[in-house]
């Protein structure tokens, strides 16, 4: 057992810490600051800050320097995840690119794709969207009907994607497209990297239950994409997508723990302010969710150990997704218990509850996107436990 990081990793931590403390305005750490901005303003501010961070060398931590990364270790990535949350760094504007597309490109992209995609993504010159879900194809992704027809060196794409995060801010969209006419299910799909700034692509915002419009829908009407802008082989998009989703599901537990643990403390603070922190039932409920959060932290250490040992987590990623998303949702259900009959009020006793409500609303989404909890349980039961389909 060795729960420490190497000297080089700790050195990286202090470098990062000092950059973060010099570059995050106090105002940004104030609860409710980000929620007080409108969506576009928040997006612009975060995009520019993240670019500066990349230029300072704090992006693409574990990717090779030749592609614009820092060339660090998995341990440095874990430290990065922890420290950025701890310092109240703004949320990334390029989550689909950074968390899912980039590792997939690094794993199976061509040399040219690695060069073209990673650097600009890190500097936020290209904001990426994920074009998987369609009105008729969510959990059953293989039911997708967006079509691509070969025309010379291009594919011509027609169809619709929905719930697309960052739809209106996106520059490019990695899109699951059926490129073999007459194919069905998992065969004949390609993952095409489509430029969204063209007449054949129309992105519209959708308002979420939280009131924000972080996702939207994307319509393809004779959109063109060069056939070489395909990630993985043409017709082999299913395999590419499964690889990509494993990164989505295995997302960083250490960042999540750090964030959720702080939210736990915020909820406790509200309970204390309302004089509800002594209620034994309330305390038991809080302790129950804290237990799950601590387990998440330990699971993150387990995952990091496996990665450092060069092991592939494979379907274990579904367990990571279940643990973090369900624990996060439980955490915000406890918040409702704390507020009791005043659960929906914007403020109580002068405490502004709106930023907390925003998290509570968001917690309803995390068990849906990236493969719903039901889908993760199917995968865990069939692929990990070996129960029959």
């Amino acid at each position, binding site marked *: 057992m060795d*729960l420490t990081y190497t000297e080089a990793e700790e050195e990286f931590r202090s470098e990062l810490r000092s950059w973060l403390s010099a570059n995050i305005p106090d105002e940004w750490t104030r609860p409710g600051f980000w929620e007080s901005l409108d969506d576009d303003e928040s997006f612009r501010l975060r995009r520019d800050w993240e670019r500066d961070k990349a230029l300072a060398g704090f992006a693409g931590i574990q990717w090779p320097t030749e592609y614009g990364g820092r060339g660090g270790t998995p341990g440095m990535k874990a430290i990065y995840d922890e420290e950025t949350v701890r310092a109240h760094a703004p949320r990334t504007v390029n989550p689909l690119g950074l968390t899912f597309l980039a590792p997939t490109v690094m794993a199976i992209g061509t040399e040219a794709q690695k060069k073209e995609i990673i650097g600009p993504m890190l500097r936020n010159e290209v904001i990426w969207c994920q074009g998987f879900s369609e009105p008729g194809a969510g959990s059953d992704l293989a039911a997708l009907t967006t079509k691509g027809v070969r025309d010379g060196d291009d594919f011509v794409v027609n169809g619709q994607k929905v719930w697309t995060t960052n739809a209106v801010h996106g520059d490019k969209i990695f899109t699951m497209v059926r490129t073999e006419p007459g194919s069905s299910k998992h065969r004949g799909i390609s993952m095409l990297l489509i430029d969204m700034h063209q007449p054949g692509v129309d992105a519209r915002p959708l308002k979420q239950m939280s009131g924000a419009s972080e996702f939207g829908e994307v319509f393809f009407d004779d959109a063109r994409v060069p056939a070489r802008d395909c990630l993985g082989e043409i017709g082999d998009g299913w395999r590419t997508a499964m690889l990509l989703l494993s990164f989505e599901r295995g997302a960083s537990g250490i960042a999540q723990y750090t964030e959720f643990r702080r939210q736990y403390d915020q909820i406790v603070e509200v309970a204390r302010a309302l004089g509800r922190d002594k209620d034994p039932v309330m*305390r038991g409920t809080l302790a129950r969710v*804290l*237990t799950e959060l601590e387990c998440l932290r330990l699971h993150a250490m387990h995952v990091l150990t496996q990665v450092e040992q060069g092991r592939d987590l494979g379907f274990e990623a579904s367990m990571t997704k279940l643990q973090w998303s369900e624990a996060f949702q439980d955490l915000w259900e406890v918040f409702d218990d704390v507020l009791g009959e005043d659960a929906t009020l914007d403020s109580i006793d002068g405490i502004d509850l709106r930023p907390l409500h925003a998290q509570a609303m968001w917690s309803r989404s995390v068990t849906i996107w990236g493969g719903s909890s039901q889908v993760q349980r199917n995968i865990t039961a069939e692929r990990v436990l070996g129960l029959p389909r």
Partner: protein
Amino acid sequence: MFFALTDDQREFDAAVRGYLAERFDLEAVRGVVEDPAGDGHPASLWKAAAEQGWPAVLVPEEHEGLGLGLVEAQVIARALGAGVAPGPWRGTVLAAEAIRLAGSPEQQAAWLPRLASGEAVGALAPRGSAPGTLPAVEYGAVADVVVVRSGEGLALVEASAFSATPQGSYDGTARLASLAVDGTGEALPGATAEIVAELTARATVLVAADLVGIAREALSRTVAYDRDRQQFGVPVGSFQAIKHALADLHVGVTMAEHAALYAAHAVDAGLPDAALAVAVAKAKAGDVALDATAAMIQYHGGIGYTWEHEAHFFYKRAKRLAGQFGDSDAQRARIAELTIDTVPA
């Protein structure tokens, strides 16, 4: 970062499990369960345990022990839980821990080599204090020495100084006794409040690890059964209601495994969050063991409710251990103290 078992620790695990699978399987456990009047302390198992160094795990090398840590001890505890194995291993290890942590050099020299070799059997009284009646002492009736609370500290009571009355318990994988102690016992001079707390933490971790072993084994056996058992022309394990329940249990058991491992390390290394880690491990392990063993009965159907089937060994052992050294509610009360009443920095 290395949060996992080392190769040596894995080998230790495989050795304990291998022995139980070959030489003390569930049929042998049944023999103990179905002989409630017996002492529940099979000589062959204890001899093998001693030869393989299970009771010696935490005893320092200078006292003829293996000098290993709580991480290794929880490996053994987990394997014993998985095998629902009877015997006074935990009590012996914990009595030795009390003597190691708080005993005088003379007490250590007198007891540690004998406890390490299995020549002497130890026990730890979880409740009551001497003089008085100490209830539900695991293997109290076969113990040569029992560690008891005495005043604010701890004391040793030898077999000649107590009388044991066996207590019936529906968990037939262990034996309990109530001990009547006349005197105050022989004080362990180093038993400060911190040492008493540390001993309790160590005991709690070992119980949590046993529960984790029970939970994993109950789940694996249920998965194996439901893969084969056919109803409606298909394996029952293909039904989503069962799949989802078992998938959730798999996540829960895995988290409890992490939690027991971490708590063992945290206590040994004296990490600042050790108290929280122990409470988390016990709360999680207790809950998941009760859930997994109840699921074992449910998802075996009628056969799972029979005496012939082994599900009840796991279920009953989980029921008993989940309450030891503070049940999940008590652990959560502790977690609340540690995370609600202390304002974060």
